[in-house]
């Protein structure tokens, strides 16, 4: 369970190009539900995602994960926390060229240096589950948009995180692939994962499986509608 208390975030503090990305955010995100932040670009939803996922620190205020303050942890512990709790799916997938698809999936586990063979097998199984096992040993350049996203999802799952954070997941996908993406998300929710996404794609925040939609504008939370517990 993630709580944000009186969180502010400015970039380039004190300089002329100071940008106030987030203003006085107070938020509690419960486990085992799908939350979507919607709003125009520049509304601060991506910045909020970086704070929740421990990618950056707030200028002021506190962020708690399961009751423990994580906003002033040294970077080393923040990274350990990311490894353990969060799986990221980026808008542009951000797969790394030069290493094979399988290695891209295994990458987040490198710092903990588990045994090599079981890790390879685990990555293969993940690719299997996402229906792209045949591309394991190929470079990432051969992947299509949809395939690249599924590899990115497999990478996000390799460390068995309890929360998946996706930034504009369907921005580069056509409607068929978007539906497939939602099916994967639904399956992950059944597996007990918490999903946090940002999107300005109606197909996402209007989807029935979404539990909570939070509307944001200019760094503020505008209004929120909590769905009644979906069937």
């Amino acid at each position, binding site marked *: 369970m993630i709580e944000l208390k009186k969180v502010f975030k400015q970039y380039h503090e004190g300089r002329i190009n100071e940008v106030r990305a987030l203003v006085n955010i107070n938020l509690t995100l419960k486990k085992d539900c799908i939350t979507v932040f919607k709003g125009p670009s520049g509304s601060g939803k991506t910045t909020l995602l970086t704070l929740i996922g421990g990618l950056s620190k707030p200028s002021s205020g506190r962020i708690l994960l399961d009751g423990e303050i994580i906003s002033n942890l040294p970077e080393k512990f923040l990274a350990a926390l990311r490894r353990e709790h969060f799986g990221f799916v*980026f808008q542009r997938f951000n797969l790394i060229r030069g290493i094979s698809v399988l290695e891209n999936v295994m990458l987040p586990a*490198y710092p903990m240096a588990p045994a090599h063979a079981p890790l390879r097998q685990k990555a293969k199984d993940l690719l299997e589950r996402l229906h792209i096992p045949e591309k394991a040993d190929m470079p990432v350049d051969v992947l299509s948009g949809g395939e690249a996203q599924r590899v990115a999802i497999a990478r996000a799952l390799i460390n068995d995180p309890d929360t998946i954070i996706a930034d504009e997941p369907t921005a580069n996908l056509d409607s068929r692939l978007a539906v497939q993406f939602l099916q994967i998300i639904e399956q992950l929710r059944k597996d007990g994962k918490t999903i946090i996404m940002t999107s300005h794609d109606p197909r996402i925040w209007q989807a029935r499986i979404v539990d909570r939609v939070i509307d944001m504008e200019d760094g503020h939370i505008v209004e929120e509608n909590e769905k009644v517990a979906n069937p």
Partner: protein
Amino acid sequence: MTEPNNSYQAGLLSRLGAAKQLYLIDFTLGAMKRRTGRNVMLFSVYLAIIFILGSVMLFSHAIRREAAILLENSPELLVQKLRMGRHELIEGTRLEVLRKIRGVRQAQGRLWGYFYDQANGANYTLMVPREQSKTTAVKPGETIIGEGVARTKGIKQGGYLFLLSETGKLMKLKVKQVFSNQSALTNTDLILLSEPDYRRFFVLPPDLYTDLSLTIRNKREIDKIVEKAAKLMPQARFITRRDILRTYESIFSWREGLLLALLGGSLIAFTILSFDKASGMSAEERREIGVLKAVGWETSDVIAMKFWEGALVSIGAFVFGVALAYAHVFFFSAGLLEPVLKGWAVIYPSFTLTPSLGGIQLATLAFFTIIPYTAATIIPIWRAATTDPDEVMR
């Protein structure tokens, strides 16, 4: 929030453990594949520098060691007469004076000098072997020549050597033997003559010698003996075996230092190159590091990974550079360095050095190449590794 999953004990072992480093190397080599052009260029420059530096150092060290071993057998004490500061022939009568000094086992005159051969502009060293020499004894009309002489005059064993003496007469000598390449380093330009032939060739009165050589009974007394001899012959110059050894020690270390100072320039250029290469971060590389940190890599993991990139290039270039230098100096007898050493001499010994390679040389070479390179990449690697993870979301 539980303690990070690796408890303190396991954390230490796995974090420092080899398993993690292997994963980092996996990633580094993969990432390096993308920028092969730049890496190959850096590797070849690195290899060339280590090859050149290695050749100079190995050659100098080997020849210094060989000189020390060989010249350990040079005469213990030599006496030269000087007049007007110039080397002058010394009278045989001086031998009795020197033989009277306590501690001198034996004193004998030496006859050696130079001969400039108009035909090919070469300088030969003519010498009379000492009485006690057996294998190098030469009867009148015979000669033993160094391989350089045989090579430049195109004569073989059994053939005849003709020398035009100052008196205009031609001296004909039968070549009894030619010294092999193995001893070329000290006798490539040597021509041994019997004493009568030598005196006839240079028109020398019977009692004059080039210098006198003394053998001393007890090594530690040399300084004492030199003092006494200096009182007897104030104007003479005394050269001990130690002087000879120290001459060569300082010649070669001075020269090696000179060459390294010259190469220092290229070293600095190379360090700047590596600094620039490491800090030349494309946007893609910066984003890539952002991704690594986002998916859970710590800054120290990224630093270790980047360090491995430099280390693999360094170690690879060092190992193969030294191997090439070793082969170049000891199997091709430093062919590339020959023009530098040869200068304008006509005769240059075709010698093969006894191979010598020690820990100190490897360490010194590493200090000159790997250390500056690694030092130069510390700051760029750190700057790369501290890119903010959230850059990847922007």
